[in-house]
């Protein structure tokens, strides 16, 4: 028998503006996690992410970006990673982020994300969190508050 999966673990729809959303005590019974965000902010910002409250420079990334007239790629290491390159008022930014083998304790965590804001850009990011700890919490945040109605859904995918 096939195993139905892609299970909704937690869903957050903001009733009031908020600077961050945290998923904690994440179910450890899946292979991958998928985070889907659709949101706006009061002013231009960047939706970012940390796991397990790790604020150290442990997130290495490579990304590519196109804005309708130019494309570029960058790479680096930081204390957080971007879900997509920007988020604005009015037109929602949409991101889909996979946390692969998030419970593995013998691997750095591989993260793939595709995102964009239709009137601004589209992009894709690969991220490596340099830790062998299982991911037990995910925090999404921005320098500007996420607007009311912004949604954050976390799914579990069996392996």
């Amino acid at each position, binding site marked *: 028998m096939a195993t139905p999966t892609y299970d909704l673990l937690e869903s957050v729809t903001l009733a009031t503006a908020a600077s961050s959303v945290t998923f904690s005590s994440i179910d450890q019974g899946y292979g991958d996690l998928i985070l889907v965000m659709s949101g706006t902010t009061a002013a231009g910002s960047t939706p970012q992410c940390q796991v397990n409250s790790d604020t150290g420079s442990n997130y290495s990334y*490579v990304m590519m970006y196109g804005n309708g007239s130019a494309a570029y790629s960058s790479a680096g290491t930081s204390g957080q990673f971007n879900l997509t390159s920007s988020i604005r008022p009015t037109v929602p930014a949409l991101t889909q982020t996979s946390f692969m083998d998030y419970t593995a304790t013998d691997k750095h965590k591989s993260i793939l994300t595709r995102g964009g804001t239709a009137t601004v850009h589209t992009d894709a990011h690969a991220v490596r969190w340099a830790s062998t700890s299982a991911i037990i919490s995910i925090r999404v945040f921005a320098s500007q508050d996420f607007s009311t109605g912004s949604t954050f859904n976390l799914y579990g995918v069996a*392996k």
Partner: protein
Amino acid sequence: MLLGILNSQAAGGGGGAYDLLETTTLATSASSVTFSGLDTLAAGYAHLQIRAVVRGVQSGTATLKANLNGDTGSNYSYHRLEGNGSSVSSAGGGSISFLSLGKVPGTSDSSEVFAPAIIDILNFSSTSQNTTARALSGNVGDVNNIALKSGLWVNTAAVTSISFANSSGDMVAGTRFSLYGIKGA
């Protein structure tokens, strides 16, 4: 369980709209991972998705490749859009002998570094269309890469097996491929 491979497999049919069909996690190094019997295992599904984390035994960074139905002839085409941390490039070509899907890190990266790939094989059971695939893959390490890839198998046969391999040697223990079925209308 297969020799040297932790393998869980479910019979086809039933389930929801997105179902886990089979997972292979290597317990020891292996040259390839194959999902076979898809005409049975994935009967009733419209599309397949494979979610993978891979690492190889080679010294540099290699290519994750796939062959369908054991076909290693020059019957595949591709397009890719990718970034390496400093520039974005695009390329395409035909008459190659495999689907090119992503990168495989090796010993130039620390042993904890694996590369992710999410691969979709669309209308895999069609006998009137050539088979198309797409992949989102990345690698953050000795070589930085983020890529969107499209692949074509120039054959109208239904896909009954998929074999994954590293272009430069074995894949190491801990490499994982999970196969999912996605229902259609």
